[in-house]
């Protein structure tokens, strides 16, 4: 059985040859948490040495990091790049530019496009487009069911052979337990993690926000937490019965965390992800009726937020995923109930987590970086490392200077960011992804030009 781990990136940019001087390197999977010079030669890390000791080869650009932090580039296992069909919201180029600008060196795109990624031809066309447009290595999940209709299965084995990293009907739950059970059985043939958007539509109904005090006040139909958690519990039971491998996407509430913890304790092969917005924001913001705060699952209560943070710290939740969901301005500039669900997240994930959780001492930096780089391994991708002989896949971040989110616009084609206007620390200055320079800030551009 083939186990492809395919991510595709544009190859017109040259492999980077670069000396980064005096970066504070933090690689959570190594022992490294100290200043280093980093020499990248033809897209691979050639040498790590004490700061100020490495000389620049003639063909290398030099970046003075001045103690800025270097992390393995982040991996986002959950983004919506909107290609094909909704390029007015985002496309492979703009979405991966946003990823690189947020320090992400790998992204995994969801299949709820138009047409849906539910057959090989769509996947092949996406690979072809990614080889021209993707600024960072990009992988794709295929749909579990044809057309995301929740009825017949996609040709999972063929999709997997063609390079799909796994399967999801994200945006929608697989409502029928019978259909999901068949997908889990079929996984024994196809391989590929089955990732689940957990929501019982009978319980979420026409809900547009978390059911709680704020929805009571606003008169908005609520989405109760148990709409998600009952499905997590159901599908963990199915996974146990079929000995299947499932991943729970964008978990949002304390009950889901409990269900995931119980499933893991029972030895079921499950993992979970959580978004930066569910870790840092709550339902209180919806009081403004600003559609930037409308997403699915919705922002929940403070108790939910705290449970998610604790689960991320303990490892019950395995990784951070942004659920980057761009929407055009005219789509979001309508009354809350009419607006589509989703927030962009790639450009703000690290700054939001750093500012809201690391700076106040809620989580340590090492944990945040580890969880931001763990999402690809769930789908069989290599974990990025800052170590000699590894492919260069790293990001350089300024932890000390505040910036206003959206002040100079976004790299994403859409501006529906729930952190818009906030002052955050942790601005990304440089991203090398797949051995290629994928993003450099104005600060870095000026520096490099000054030297060369």
């Amino acid at each position: 059985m083939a186990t492809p781990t395919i991510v595709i990136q544009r190859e017109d940019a040259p492999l980077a040859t670069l000396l980064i001087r005096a970066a504070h390197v933090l690689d959570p999977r190594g022992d490294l948490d100290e200043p280093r010079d980093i020499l990248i030669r033809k897209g691979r890390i050639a040498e790590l040495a004490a700061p100020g000791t490495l000389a620049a080869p003639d063909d290398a650009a030099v970046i003075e990091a001045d103690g800025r932090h270097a992390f393995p580039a982040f991996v986002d296992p959950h983004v919506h790049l909107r290609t094909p069909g909704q390029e007015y919201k985002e496309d492979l180029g703009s979405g991966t530019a946003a990823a690189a600008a947020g320090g992400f060196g790998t992204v995994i795109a969801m299949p709820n496009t138009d047409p849906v990624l539910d057959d090989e031809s769509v996947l092949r066309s996406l690979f072809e487009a990614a080889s021209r447009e993707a600024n960072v290595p990009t992988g794709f999940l295929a749909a579990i069911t044809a057309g995301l209709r929740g009825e017949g299965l996609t040709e999972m084995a063929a999709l997997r052979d063609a390079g799909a990293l796994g399967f999801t009907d994200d945006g929608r739950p697989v409502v029928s337990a019978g259909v999901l059970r068949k997908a889990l059985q079929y996984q024994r043939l196809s391989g590929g993690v089955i990732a689940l958007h957990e929501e019982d539509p009978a319980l979420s109904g026409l809900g547009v926000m978390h059911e709680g005090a704020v929805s009571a006040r606003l008169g908005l139909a609520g989405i109760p937490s148990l709409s998600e958690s009952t499905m997590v519990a159901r599908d963990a039971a199915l996974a146990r019965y079929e000995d299947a491998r499932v991943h729970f996407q964008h978990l949002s509430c304390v009950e889901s965390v409990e269900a995931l913890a119980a499933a893991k304790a029972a030895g079921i092969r499950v993992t979970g992800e959580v978004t930066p917005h569910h870790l840092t924001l709550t339902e209180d913001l919806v009081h403004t009726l600003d559609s930037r705060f409308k997403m699915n699952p919705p922002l929940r209560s403070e108790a939910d937020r705290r449970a998610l943070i604790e689960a991320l710290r303990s490892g019950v939740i395995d990784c951070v995923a942004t659920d980057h969901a761009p929407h055009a301005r005219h789509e979001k500039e309508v009354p809350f109930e009419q607006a589509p669900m989703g927030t962009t997240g790639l450009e703000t994930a690290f700054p939001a987590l750093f500012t809201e959780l690391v700076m106040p001492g809620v989580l340590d930096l090492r944990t945040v970086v580890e969880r931001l780089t763990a999402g690809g391994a769930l789908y069989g991708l290599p974990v990025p490392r800052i170590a000699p002989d590894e492919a260069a896949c790293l990001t350089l971040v300024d932890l000390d200077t505040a910036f206003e989110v959206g002040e100079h616009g976004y790299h994403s084609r859409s501006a529906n960011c729930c952190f818009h206007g906030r002052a955050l620390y942790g601005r990304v200055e440089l991203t090398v992804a797949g051995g290629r320079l994928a993003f450099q800030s104005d600060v870095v551009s000026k520096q490099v030009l000054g030297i060369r």
Partner: protein
Amino acid sequence: MNRHLVSIEDLGRADIERILDRAESFAEVSGREIKKVPALRGRTIVNLFYEASTRTSSSFELAAKRLSADVVSIRSAGSSVDKGESLRDTVQTLSAYDPAAIVIRSPHAGAARLVAGWTEASVINAGDGKHEHPTQALLDVFTLRRRLGSIDGTNIWIVGDVLHSRVARSDIQAFRRMGATVTVCGPPTLLPRQIETLGCAATPSLDGLEAADVVYVLRMQRERMQDAYVPSLREYAERYQIGASRLRPGQLLMHPGPVNRGVELSADAIDSPQALIGEQVKSGVAVRMAVLYELLAGSPVLQAVA
């Protein structure tokens, strides 16, 4: 006070009392043979109604006319809204007429607040989804204050479909701000979870209703049966209908209209002398005159576009 009235939260107790005092003097105008004052002469008021409405739209229109404003009333049916124009584009188009105020009724929560961000005009929320209906709350407080003198310490019960009621949400807050205690009562399926966080008590039982000074009954919409909120209107009426026999002497009865006779209220209750329903409607014009005056009369007349 704010330039707009989008939520009852925008008003402090002093604001409410000032508006109601002014409404008293406008009520006097409404009793004259010539029911008109020149306060807003030359100003334009746009009524933008995206939902069917009889009493709210007619009373806003009358209020504006009695203040001598020019009024344009737009209903979604037959307008450009019907042709798919976005709310923002409609508002920008109407703003080209330099209206002093836009009165908006929308089926969607937050519509008035959004509109306030898109126009120079003062925006008045005439009902946004199930969120708020602040002028209804003001006229309810006005009606009660006229009858009782003050509503400080008054025990008010709001009975019926609280879940889908913007009137209940605005009234709970307005009544509390004016010193009343509020209990909401209805079938458990029609009481929002955590409604108590608005500062009211909540109960599925009418036990204790006899202690209320005011019984405020909400409209029960027939389509709630299809969504299984109640098994039948028959059972609803049996458990929650307020008839004359359920009212203690001296209790006041209110309803925002329109009434479903024989569902939430019996005919004998509607027609009883304890019912203030007709007075609520009458108060609507004076209170909306006061709101328009409060928001517009203080500000400079908008310059015509050259």
